[in-house]
């Protein structure tokens, strides 16, 4: 809307900022008790659009606040580099549909190595392009991680994640809270 100067009256916000706001206000009652014993490790992907392209680290810091709240601070392992200096996954800019899969996967090799270096079992990818690409490079390069949406882990922590909503969870979490 900025690019084309399209007039609009509404405010534009990301759901990640709202999750963080609701947790701070006590509206979203969620904690990491479910992971106290399990100690399942999580890392995160910073989508370029909400990190570098948003002009600040506000959204990706909110993202980390939400993740640490729901998985436990000790179970979150950040990537290096991170936040607005993180690497693109290689799926953005239309790459998933551009018809150059070999180059797209070569691009994603850096992301794959970053994730593997964290040793985490789960990557939270709050963007569909990132989700699709990180899953694909995980399969391609033989990764040991699962890629999940943020809402899946929030609902898991709330104890309301249904049986049919666990497609992306590994066997270690498939039954948790059912």
């Amino acid at each position, binding site marked *: 809307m900025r690019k084309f100067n399209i007039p609009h009256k509404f405010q534009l916000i990301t759901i990640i900022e709202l999750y963080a706001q609701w947790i701070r206000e006590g*509206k979203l009652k969620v904690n990491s008790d479910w992971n106290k014993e399990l100690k399942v490790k999580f890392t995160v992907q910073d989508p370029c659009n909400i990190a570098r392209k948003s002009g600040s680290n506000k959204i990706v810091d909110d993202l980390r606040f939400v993740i640490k709240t729901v998985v436990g601070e000790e179970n979150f392992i950040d990537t290096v580099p991170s936040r607005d200096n993180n690497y693109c996954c290689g799926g953005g800019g239309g790459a998933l549909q551009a018809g150059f899969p070999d180059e797209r996967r070569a691009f994603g090799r850096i992301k794959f190595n970053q994730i593997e270096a964290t040793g985490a079992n789960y990557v939270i990818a709050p963007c569909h392009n990132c989700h699709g690409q990180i899953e694909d490079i995980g399969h391609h390069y033989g990764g040991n991680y699962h890629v999940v949406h943020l809402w899946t882990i929030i609902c898991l922590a709330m104890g*309301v994640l249904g049986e049919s909503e666990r497609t992306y969870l590994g066997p270690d979490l498939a039954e948790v809270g059912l």
Partner: protein
Amino acid sequence: MAEAIKIDELDIEFKDEVLGKVPAANFDLCLTCGTCTGGCAASELMDMDPRKLIRMLNLGMDDVILKSNWKWVCSMCQRCVAACPMKINIPALVFNLRAAIPREKRPKGILGSCDQHIRTGSAMGAKKEDFEFTVLDVAEEIRESHPGFEDLEVSVDREGAVMVLNQNSREPVTEPEEMGPLWKILHSVGADWTYPSVMWAGENYCMFMADNEGWKYIIEEFAYHIDNNLKSPMVVNTE
């Protein structure tokens, strides 16, 4: 052996064309330091990298850079311009290299998604009727079989809702059960929200395709619907 570049035979046309559209792109300020390339995940792919691209642009090697498919491998992630000491807007150059290709010759996958979006409101071609049917159907299933969510409310085009959410079309089209967790969170905090029927999908492949007209059309239709039909004060991007 590599052939010397014959500068005298080159006209620097494409650079001027892009600078006409993006005057602040700073192409002439390149120090050739290579910081862009050192931090670029697409460096060396297709025998190209950001620094080389700027050198070729500044030397007038327009044919080579216009022909290279590297512009579709670079994701315009902006890591290069973020690190560049002279703030040279390399992603804007890549965008304009994409835009310089005749529309019908751009990658089929991106072109198809852009056209579907203009036609139906989502890149996967799901019409608003299909979208509405799917979300209401999944919501009914959750109300019936997920304890604690008997009162779950999901609506499309509910006028006056405080929040309007977009939704990546991958969910309603290929994995509708993935929408449930999002709705459960919204329900738990008592959010007053709805989906729009016009341009409801979160993605925008026309932007990737460098189709300014299509990109603009999608956003304009969306903004008009929110302001004039739904009259909602807030739009929530769900990814």
